[in-house]
């Protein structure tokens, strides 16, 4: 009974965050546009060499997701801070993990939607020709996003109390993301290049391990960072 109540709370937070985001629209448009802009800038920087573009595609895509995602994480807590809603949220008779789970799931859906917009742009811009591994590549996108969003949601909650949160969040988050970024980019690169799964397999296993560690650690530590 108590657990089903908690799941209802998780769903309520997801519904509230996504409804607010859908109504304002500014957040999604800004994040997706920033992602596309970063891809374009990488494209310009790499020049017209098709081979160089293809080789850099996975790395550029993940960096674009990473930079754009930081905006999304900051916004997720900005929603609460704008109207002074963070304190009432913390004062509901709910275990803290339900708040983290709701925010995590809403952020994950948001980031996956942004990826739906910017991945096709990356495929065209970076002239990715082999789409044979699209299904495993999509799986890697989801796995990479889980680790990325778990850490992003966690550190955004930590930074939300600071006046310098826009600066603080990337400073806290980016060093911790190196393993997820590396595993995601390498696995995506192997799959987009049309290599068989055995090349990507080791990176995917590593990515799954990081996801488990980051998600569990974030859930456990959230209770302490959100307290005043």
């Amino acid at each position: 009974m108590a657990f089903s109540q908690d799941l209802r709370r998780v769903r309520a937070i997801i519904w509230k965050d996504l409804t607010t985001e859908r109504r304002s629209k500014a957040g999604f448009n800004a994040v997706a546009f920033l992602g596309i802009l970063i891809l374009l800038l990488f494209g310009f920087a790499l020049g017209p060499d098709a081979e160089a573009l293809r080789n850099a595609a996975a790395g550029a895509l993940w960096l674009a997701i990473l930079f754009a995602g930081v905006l999304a994480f900051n916004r997720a807590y900005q929603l609460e801070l704008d109207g002074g809603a963070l304190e009432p949220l913390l004062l509901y008779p709910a275990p803290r993990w339900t708040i983290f789970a709701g925010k995590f799931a809403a952020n994950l859906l948001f980031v996956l939607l942004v990826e739906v917009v910017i991945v096709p742009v990356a495929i065209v811009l970076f002239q990715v020709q082999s789409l044979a591994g699209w299904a495993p590549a999509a799986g890697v996108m989801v796995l990479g996003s889980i680790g990325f969003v778990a850490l992003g949601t966690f550190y955004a909650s930590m930074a939300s109390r600071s006046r310098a949160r826009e600066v603080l969040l990337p400073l806290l988050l980016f060093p911790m993301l190196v393993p997820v970024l590396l595993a995601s980019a390498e696995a995506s690169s192997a799959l987009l290049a049309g290599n068989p799964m055995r090349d990507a397999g080791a990176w995917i296993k590593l990515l799954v391990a990081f996801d488990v560690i980051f998600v569990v650690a974030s859930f456990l530590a959230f209770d302490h960072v959100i307290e005043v």
Partner: protein
Amino acid sequence: MTTTNRSTLILQGLARRFGTRWALRGVTLSLEPGEVVGIMGHNGSGKSTLLRVISTALRPSAGEGWVFGKHLVREAVEVRRHIGFLAHSPGLYEDLTARENLIFAARMFGVEESGILPALERVGLSQGRDERVRGFSAGMQRRLALARMILGAPGLLLLDEPYNNFDPQGIELVNEVIQDARRGGGSALVVLHDRRQGERVLDRIVELNRGAVIGVSAGTPLTLVSVGGSH
């Protein structure tokens, strides 16, 4: 201090420090069922900090407290089930409608959504229930925050300057909500600057200065009955 095992609230030597500054210093206080107590004091005297510590938004730096027998720190989730906190800021989601804000609150409180419309009617917002909060005046937002508090059916109301932004009808509404809680056996702690606004509903007034209790008024009309000590 007289406390019973039925006491709504018991605070013993409660203190809270921000950095090197003590915002609360050894507050000892108790509330019995049906009792409404006003908290008064100058700006920075610790009134809002006291409510935030009782609400579990802040952890005490020293001392202990219980709400309906539940420990403020060790049983914080249980404490939150009994508390309705009306803070300075309404804490609403401006891109949601009034009704949607209460749907969210009902799900988070773990109560039935059938209480939403009566709560909106109680605060006079049933007409604007499907309007986004962004377009609400400060007074309407305050009414909606009051409806959210009622929805949780709390046994202890913590009201931080509840009369702010309200017209005379709004002030009357706040007093009625307090009286309703009292009739149901609930209690209230009300932070206020002007004792005339809440005089009709208050049983006692506790005066704070620099985080410490410096006096208590009681009786009709409210007159100073003790200075310092436990209350």
